[in-house]
């Protein structure tokens, strides 16, 4: 009969330690998550709501926002020629990136391949522009693009080859392509790095087997390498598009969106209205439109690829 209470006591003890473990777990979860959660809610989530709110006001930033105008800001933005120009420029950058920059990166990655002597040296060199700041990159390229052929390197070469010099950053029809060239210089190494890693994950045996079966290098590339690189290519497309939507610093440093809005992107448009003209309500609406575009694209991407490969926010 004395046996029972002892057993009971033992059981209770076990229960207590279980509870202890659980409270301890809770404390750790709360303490570990708290710093990230506070910063994230304060500086990322809350601003979204705040902007949605301000985007319905005609607010110049002085005093409280009182002039409620509903969705007028959105209507104005979506019919503003300059904003449509900015969207067109972003679409040009996306098209050129997917059509030229990523294929170039892929070709170079395949050329470097697995075991070319000097492989890691080339990787180091091609990736170097990625780590330089956009400000420095922009200024460097402004030197190269100088319209005067006695000062600008690119124009001097054009003149020597018998072409007319081009005012790269001052010609409304050329400027966006000039910016694209700089973007390619800076970012193709990053995509190449992704492809190189992807290539390394493809087992060598598959390509060897295809070769023994009589596939030449070109067949090998199109029927073996390319399909197996699929998920890497999707990742790089995703990052390229998301990067293009938010393009800001390089454009701002090189042209301020000019000449006459010819190189405006959505982000420079938002910056101009928010921080230069101080139309904060209008600028908020631009921010929300850009956020929605990024979100639609991300959700589409996830729906199309199912397994989300893409992780970093770089």
């Amino acid at each position, binding site marked *: 009969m004395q046996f029972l209470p002892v057993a009971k006591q033992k059981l209770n003890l076990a229960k207590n330690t279980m509870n202890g473990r659980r409270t301890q777990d809770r404390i750790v*979860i709360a303490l570990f998550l708290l710093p990230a959660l506070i910063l994230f809610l304060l*500086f990322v989530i809350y601003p979204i709501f705040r902007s949605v709110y301000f985007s319905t006001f005609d607010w110049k930033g002085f005093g409280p926002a009182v002039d409620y105008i509903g969705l007028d800001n959105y209507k104005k933005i979506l019919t503003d020629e300059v904003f449509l120009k900015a969207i067109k420029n972003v679409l040009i950058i996306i098209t050129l990136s997917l059509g030229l920059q990523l294929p170039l990166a892929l070709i170079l990655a395949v050329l470097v391949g697995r075991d070319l002597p000097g492989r890691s040296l080339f990787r180091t060199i091609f990736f170097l522009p990625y780590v330089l*700041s956009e400000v420095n990159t922009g200024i460097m390229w402004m030197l190269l693009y100088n319209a005067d052929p006695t000062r600008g390197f690119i124009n*001097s070469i054009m003149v020597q080859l018998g072409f007319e010099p081009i005012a790269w950053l001052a010609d409304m029809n050329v400027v966006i392509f000039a910016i694209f060239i700089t973007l390619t210089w800076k970012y193709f190494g990053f995509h190449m790095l992704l492809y190189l890693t992807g290539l390394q994950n493809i087992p060598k045996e598959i390509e060897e087997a295809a070769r023994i079966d009589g596939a030449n290098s070109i067949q090998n590339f199109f029927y073996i390498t390319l399909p197996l690189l699929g998920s890497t290519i999707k990742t790089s497309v995703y990052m390229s598009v998301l990067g293009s939507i938010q393009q800001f610093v390089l454009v701002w440093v090189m042209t301020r969106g000019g000449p006459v809005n010819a190189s405006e992107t959505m982000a420079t448009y938002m910056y101009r209205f928010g921080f230069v003209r101080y139309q904060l309500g209008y600028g908020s609406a631009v921010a929300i439109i850009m956020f929605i575009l990024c979100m639609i694209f991300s959700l589409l991407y996830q729906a199309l690829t199912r397994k989300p*490969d893409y992780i970093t926010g*770089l």
Partner: protein
Amino acid sequence: MGKYLTTPRWIQKVIPRIIIYVFLISATIMIFIPIVILLFGSVKTTGQMYSHPYSIPNPPNWENILLILSTPSFWNMLKNSLIVMVATTGGTVSICALAAFVFARMQFRGKNFLFNLFTIGLMFPINVAILPVYFVLRQLELMGIPMIDQLWGVILVQIAFQLSGNIMILRGFFTAVPTDLQDVAYMDGCTNFDFFWRIMLPLVKPSLSAVGALVMIASWNDLLVPLIVLNSNQLWTLPLGTMQFQGQYGQDLALVSAFVALSAIPTIIFYFFAERQIVSGLTAGAVKG
């Protein structure tokens, strides 16, 4: 017989190699042209810059470099950039490691919801969020918490926008550590905190330095956050100072080149030392997670 008429094996192998190298070397030249012209320009006089803009500087003229190195504002910018970079990197790595550990190793209600909440950050990058963030900084300022024109304003915003991506990268690394290890540790009476601190952290150290290297570069190169947060020029960081310098002395190409070269060189040196970490961080983030 036919065997002797075809081109020898080694030629079949060498010719494609040569073509590949020609391609790769021309791409290398393209990469180096802007950098080399900048470095040449940085050691020219303004006169040389106009008469021979892209030749090898002969003799090199160190005047502009020395002039910039002797201005206190350059060192001040360097100091500000360093403070911001160290604080942002330390903050991001430690905060993300804590959160990533919880998401990788603990079970609780609402875990999926919270994790999905953090993925919103990926769709709201700082270039899009900058105006909304500015509202919040102003609001905090009005509430008596100084944020604008303060280095910690820059630091906190930079950390906040580094969270989403890096929590996900680190969660991947934490998840990769075998669960058996956790069971054994708990059986031996290890608390959660001990397990995190003594077992997990040492195991994922290489990943932490990979994430750290990426954050360092992002913070060091960031223009946008300092641009909207900082007003007084004694707080400017290097990229912000570089942009303002270019605006002010844009006509003097030699002087601007010297300034840009001086602000780019630390990044290039850092890159050659930390390339392995940077590359492994980026590929972990983008390819697997």
